[in-house]
């Protein structure tokens, strides 16, 4: 088991630190709206072909960061280079090489699926024949071929999301910016989207995404930063973050309503670290079964016991003292 961990965390070691090697380079990047600091002096680099994530709760500054990278919102302070260009001076040139999937769909709902690809391709100055050719491939990729002539208004949320992703690929971008690509989708639609994004990654497209879903970050990101209150609080591969900030396993104990509040003192020393959430107790230990056994040995009688592997959720809890999704 520990061998696997060592292998999966290996890419972390090779993470680039030289600015010229990175597609996106940020130092002291700051965004303020009046008195509110949305992004507070953050540093990060994204290398070519990498899949990089911003993980954090709503309001952590993820979207503001993405908008600065997307060259649609100027930084208040700090350095930001994208594709070795300046987002203020070269905004249109940089945007020509980006594929943007915004948090909220921005499709033209009065047009058909194919017409949406057409007008969007025209914004990049592509010719109509070129767009038509690419549109066929993209519709296939997004599994929308049969809906090509349907008006967008009538599509489900999942289909719209897939069209938004297909649309963002019309210019064959070097970097894709995905702001919460699967928020609001049902599990089936999410898995299909993940599969499509994974294929893009295989093709060498650089992915930059934000999410507040742990599983999404673990599935898609080679490397990620955890954001909280406008700052980056940790950085690494999902595996290495879990290793650094959590234990191998977690034992979740759920008690009868009201019982958990009476346990003070009885939980101490059961595991390396003990966290109390409103609805359950988390025991952080490398051997979850042993922690569960220790709890039973003390005479604790939880209604349910669940031993699971640590996740990024645990990392976030450790770093911020709060859970990630409300």
């Amino acid at each position, binding site marked *: 088991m520990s061998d696997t961990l060592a292998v999966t965390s290996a890419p972390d070691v090779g993470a680039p630190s030289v600015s010229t090697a990175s597609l996106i380079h940020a130092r002291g990047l700051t965004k303020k709206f009046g008195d509110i600091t949305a992004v507070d002096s953050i540093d990060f680099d994204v290398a070519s072909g990498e899949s990089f994530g911003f993980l954090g709760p709503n309001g952590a500054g993820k979207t503001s960061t993405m908008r600065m990278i997307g060259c649609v919102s100027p930084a208040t302070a700090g350095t930001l280079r994208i594709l070795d260009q300046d987002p203020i001076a070269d*905004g249109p040139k940089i945007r020509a090489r980006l594929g943007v999937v*915004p948090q909220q769909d*921005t*499709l*033209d709902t*009065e*047009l058909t699926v194919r017409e949406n690809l057409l007008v969007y391709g*025209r*914004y990049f*100055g592509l010719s109509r024949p070129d767009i038509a050719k690419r549109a066929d491939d993209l519709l296939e990729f997004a599994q929308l071929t049969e809906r090509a002539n349907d008006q967008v208004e009538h599509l489900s949320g999942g289909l719209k999301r897939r069209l938004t992703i297909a649309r963002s690929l019309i210019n064959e971008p070097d970097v894709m910016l995905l702001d919460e690509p699967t928020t609001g989708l049902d599990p089936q639609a999410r898995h299909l989207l993940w599969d499509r994004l994974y294929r893009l990654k295989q093709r060498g497209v650089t992915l930059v995404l934000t999410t507040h879903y742990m599983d999404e970050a673990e599935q898609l990101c080679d490397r990620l930063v955890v954001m909280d209150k406008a700052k980056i609080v940790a950085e690494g591969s999902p595996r290495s973050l879990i290793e650094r900030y959590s234990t191998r396993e977690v034992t979740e104990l759920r008690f009868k309503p009201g019982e958990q509040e009476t346990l003070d003192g009885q939980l101490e020393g059961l595991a390396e670290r003990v966290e109390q959430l409103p609805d359950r107790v988390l025991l952080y230990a490398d051997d979850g079964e042993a922690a569960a056994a220790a709890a039973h040995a003390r005479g604790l009688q939880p209604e349910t016991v669940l031993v699971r592997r640590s996740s990024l959720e645990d990392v976030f809890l450790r770093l911020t003292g709060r859970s990630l999704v409300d």
Partner: protein
Amino acid sequence: MLALVNTGVGRVFEHRFILYRKTFRASIFSSFLTPVLFLTAMGLGIGGYVDRGGANAALGGVPYIAFLAPGLLVSSAMQTAAFEATFPIMAGLVWSRIYHAMYATPITPRQIALGNILWFGARLLLISTVFTAIIVAFGAAISPLIVLTIPVAALTGLAFATPIAAFSATQRTPDRFAAIFRFGITPLFLFSGTFYPVESLPAIVQPLAWITPLYHGVVLARGLSLGTIGTPQLPPELALLHLAVLVAFTVVGTWATIKTVSAKLVRG
């Protein structure tokens, strides 16, 4: 015009055109129907009574329908312009957020604003051409100069559309649009010299007509349609002044639209 096609402004225009093509039939039908209804009801119907006592000096000695027609043309351009500059702008920035999608590409906010204003102009030229053809068919045109009322009507439309679009871009909900129509467009339609000379209004109200573009557009269009431009009824200097007011509204409105659309897009 060809050179424009492959610019950002041209591509924004193209998007609007593709959208318009879908509703072209319904739209062109109503472009025909509205002037036919108005000219029949008011020009022929009411005009029949107005003209009963012979040529009316206050109307410049022409049949009422000839007096009315250029006013209706310009007013109708104003109404279309006000509509185009409110709800579609809100859709682009707030509802479907399609302008945000454009801004994620090499297109700039300035090009988004200008492409839409160019579209207003094209749409206004189209409906004004249809309207003018119907005026001619009704025999209500006196001078061949009526052809020039088409650009005058379109310009008057832009003099409304651009400042209204600038305002629309600052709004998050359409709540205040009703006020624009209720307290702006409808009273102007009634009191800016479309149906009767502004001089028939109480002297104290008359200056109110002067500060809005509609009055200037109506006077100019009427001078062209009746062929009185260049005569003491509408001296060239005065005609130029009317034109200058319309241009000024359009230029300032365009500048303001670029500002407010940019601000909204950058804010997110």
